[in-house]
Structure formats: C-alpha cells, structure tokens
C-alpha cells in the first residue's frame, strides 16, 4: 500500500488533505459527516477526503494500517481488540456514545405481554426466546447486546438467539418478513421499519434508556501511532473540527439535523430520519473526548467479554492527547 510516511499534502487552497475512511453513513458517524457536509474541516485548515465503503470496523482498520487512510471511523471494541493484538492504533476522538436501538417486528412486539413504554427491565426480560440480529461476535454492538441482556438475568447464549450479520443488508427485509424478531443496530437502520409500521422501537440507547451506558463511547476516530506521532498538529485540528460539529448539534439540533438530512442522509425517508435524529441527537459526547473514565467504563463493562488482554492497554498510548480532555 502507499507508504504511511508520505506526509499529508497541501491542496491549492492551502488546506491539508487528510484521507478518512468511513462506513456508509449511520447516525454513529453523524459528526464526521456533518464536518464534511458543512465544510467545518476548512475552519481548521483541513480538507477531509472521505471514502465511504461498505466495510465494517475491521476492514476500516485494515485499510488504515495498509496506508489507505489517515483516519478511520470504527467501533471502540474493534479498535481495542486490534490494539490488544499489537495493531498500534490511537483514538483521536470519541464521536459517539452507543447510538444503537432495538427494534422489534411490530407483530412480535404486539404479541408480547410487555408494552414499549413499560420499564426498561421488563422490556429487556421480554426478549427471552426472541431472535435478534446484530453485528458479528465481538463487535461493539454484539458485545453491548450480550452485556445488556446479561445484566438483566438472561443468558445471551441460551435465552435468546443472537444472529450476526456482517453487512446490514438483511435487517429491514428480515424484520419485515419476520426472518428475525428484531435487531440491535445503529440508529437509522431498522428505523425504516419503524417508519413503515413493520417495526416497533423497543429500546433506544441514545435516548438514555440504559443509564449504565451513558458514560460509554461506542464509536471513535482512530489513526495510526506513526501518523499521530508525526503529525500532532493535524490530529489536534481534526479533533477540533469534530468538537465544533458536536457543539453545532448540541446548540442547534434542528439545523444540524437539516444539514445532515440534506446531504449524508439524502436517501433516507423523512419520517425515518426524523425518528432516528430524535433519538440520536443527544448521543454525541461533549467535546468529542475519549476520557480515562470512558475507557474505564468500557473495561468494566466489556473487559471480561473480550478474549484479549485489554487491561494491558495503556490509556495514554491508546488515546491521543487532544481526545483525553486532561489539559
């Protein structure tokens, strides 16, 4: 692949070009999309060149390491696993809490003797015996779902049937046809079911249904150790641009939502967007930080679930200075 040591180039406007690998737009990655759509990057001397592929976190990291990108948006769990295996990644921003929701097939939801507005404990226990689709084992979503049901006395291996889906292709159709009873995915996917009435929103993390997860950063932007060491000012500018986007969302969610819907989410039905944005807008961490507390919360919740030695990860090595929020 292209050598990582080629320093980022200046474009004709005097902006520094940086390559960013992103998944297809979901609300997990709304902030970085907002930065690009609203040209916030230019305010910080950067010209972000996004590549939006269908690739999951693992492939994003592979591409980053192979020198295809300077930054990539990935799930925290995948980043942590990679670092534990010696991948040498550094988090430069925490861009989202866990902006996931559980959506059930509407008929399945009706058939349960629990309602969508009953206490969250009841709603989780009601998942017993259901088939829920989510990302592959050990991805952030998968770990979170398992943890979630475990906390409420369900055995994720026995009491419900968790089916992994690598790409999101089957979710909407699957829920609609009853191929599975529900899904646990990033907001914006199964919201299509909510919008057309074939699905019922059961649990929403960005809405704050599960308090325990409020301190959790589920998605972040990473770069390589080498890039961060060689380009501290770019990393700082990158972080600052994202922080500006977060502030925009917090201060004027409607305008931010409008901008997103017009650009990155132009294909999304207006109702679907509205439902999703309603949940998602409160899910972005203040200052796009990834604090020591965030990391410790992650370890506490998921440290045991990983087969990697996450405890061996040194926070200062894992998180770039601007994202620590310690200065």
């Amino acid at each position: 692949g292209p050598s990582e040591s080629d320093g980022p180039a200046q474009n004709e406007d005097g902006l520094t070009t940086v390559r960013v690998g992103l998944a297809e737009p979901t609300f997990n990655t709304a902030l970085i999309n907002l930065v690009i759509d609203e040209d916030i990057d230019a305010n910080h001397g950067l010209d972000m060149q996004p590549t939006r592929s269908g690739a999951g976190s693992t492939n994003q990291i592979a591409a980053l390491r192979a020198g295809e990108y300077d930054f990539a948006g990935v799930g925290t769990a995948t980043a942590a696993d990679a670092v534990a295996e010696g991948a040498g990644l550094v988090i430069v921003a925490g861009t989202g809490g866990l902006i996931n929701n559980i959506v059930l097939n509407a008929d399945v939801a009706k058939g349960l003797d629990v309602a969508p507005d009953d206490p969250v404990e009841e709603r989780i226990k009601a998942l017993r015996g259901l088939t829920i689709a989510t990302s592959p084992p050990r991805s952030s979503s998968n770990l979170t779902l398992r943890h979630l049901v475990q906390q409420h006395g369900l055995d994720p291996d026995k009491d419900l049937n968790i089916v992994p889906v690598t790409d999101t292709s089957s979710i909407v159709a699957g829920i609609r046809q009853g191929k599975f009873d529900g899904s646990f995915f990033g907001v914006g996917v199964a919201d299509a079911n909510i919008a057309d009435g074939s699905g019922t929103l059961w649990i929403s993390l960005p809405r704050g249904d599960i308090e325990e997860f409020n301190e959790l950063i589920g998605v972040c932007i990473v770069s390589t150790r080498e890039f961060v060491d060689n380009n501290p000012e770019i990393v700082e500018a990158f972080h600052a641009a994202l922080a500006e986007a977060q502030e925009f969302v917090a201060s004027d969610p409607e305008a931010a939502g409008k901008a997103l819907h017009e650009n990155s989410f132009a294909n999304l039905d207006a109702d679907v967007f509205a439902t999703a944005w309603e949940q998602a807008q409160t899910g972005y961490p203040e200052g796009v930080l990834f604090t020591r507390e965030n990391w410790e919360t992650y370890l506490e919740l998921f440290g045991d679930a990983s087969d990697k030695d996450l405890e061996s990860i040194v926070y200062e090595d894992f998180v770039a200075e601007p994202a620590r929020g310690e200065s």
Partner: protein
Amino acid sequence: MSVSTTVTEPDKTTTDSAAPATAPQPRRSRARWRPRLHHFVQLCVIVVLLASWELSAGRLIDDLLTSRPSEVFPTFWSWVVSGELLYHASSTFKDAFLGLLAGGGLGLVVGCVLGQSQWLARVCEPFITAFYTMPKHALIPLFIMWVGIGSELRVLTAAAIVFFLVFYNTFFGIRDVSKNLVDSVRVMGGTAFDVLFRVMLPSALIWVFAALKLAVPQAIVGVVVAEMLAGDRGLGFLVAMHAGTFNSDGTFAAIFALLIVGFLVDRLMNLVTRRALLWKNNDTTA
C-alpha cells in the same frame, strides 16, 4: 510414455492377439502403503517451511500479519480437542452437501429435459452461458434478502453454483451422446425407454461426474463465502471472525483447517469418481 510391461512373460509372447495385455492386474493403489523417499522429503519440506515461518515471524514480518506456527498449531489443536472444529467443519460440509444434492439433482433433471432437443439447446444457449459464467457469489446479497442468513442461505448459495455446473454439463453431455450408440441400441431392439436409460443417461453420467469434480469444491467455496458474508458458524465464519478481531493465530488455524478440507475433498472426489467411472479409467491397454 511408460512402456507396457505386459508382454515380457515368455508364455505370452506366443499369442497373436492382445488378449494377455488385458488380464486384470493388481492395481497400484491397492498396494499397502509404505513410506518412501519422497514422503520423507515432503516431511522435510514441511519442517523447513514451518521453521522459516517461525523464525521470520515477529522479526522480518509483523506478527499481527502472519502469526507463527507455534501459536497457530496449539490454537488449531485446542479446536480439535474442544470439538469447535468439528462443529464448524460439519456445518460447512452439511450445507455444502445439501446444496450439492439440491443443485445437482435439479441440474441433472433440467439438463436431461432441455438436452433432448437440438433446437431447444440453440435457443437456450446464450441464457445458459450468461448464467454459467456469471459470478454466482454476487447473488449472495440477494439471497440474504430472500432467505435471511441461516442455513438456507448457505445451502441456496451452494445449490445455485452447483446447479449451473451440473446443468451445463448434463445439457451439453446428453447432446453429445453418439448417434451411433443410439442407433445400435435401437437396431438391437431397444425401445425409447432403453435408449434413455441405457444410453442417454449413462452417457451423460461421465459429464455429470466431470461436473461434480468441479462442483464439490465450488459448493464448498459458495458456503464458505456465504459464511464469511453472513452467519455464525462454519469454517468461513471462523476465518472471518478471527480475522475480524485481529486474531491471526485463529485466522491461520482456520485457513489451515480449510487446507486440510481441500486436500481431503480432492482425495475423496478422486475415490468417488474413480469407483463410479471404473469402466472409464481402467484402460490398462494403450
């Protein structure tokens, strides 16, 4: 190239006809296995390769990219012991086998039916060709929309791949049946039924077996790709899952499992086709 060794016995050189050349001979493959020089050399090759891998890992190449034998094989062994390997391998095989059965059976029937007519063949040819050559794996996302991500997906994928292989071969195979063979059976007193079951189908069977030699590995490829794209079991899932969590030991152990599978499948196919086509492969005379 090798010279027939059948005319060396003195009492046989007096016969005119080639008869003695055809006396059934003990077959080589039946001989009891005993280690030979090349087996030893093979062992050496393996040892040297593994040693250089082990020594270069972590020095010349990033450990994360290539793992190392001393970590791959214990991982592999732990799967063997825990039954995890058996679980995933049997899932892959089961789905491939079902796909083979469904796709192969359907391909055979449709091929036989359409293959009866020269004219039908000409009409269908471009469609068959297009589907035959098209990368069927690209249908997997569509299949996911149709049947979800369970066992059905993997079986359907394998079946779709196998169907076209077997159909194509049966279709063109059955049209390749010698008119002379058919005529000779009719003159002998054979009915249309005799012609179909005693000439057409057995003739096409060579082609079907040729197709199967391709189809079995392809069925496994189909299942493995489907497992990588979606699913929670099987050898393809094992590779994707370990690669997906940057576990190179596991990735290589899973690939090693697939290598063994490849080898065994090849040997098995040789055995099966050799038995079934005994009449074809046994030409001991030149």
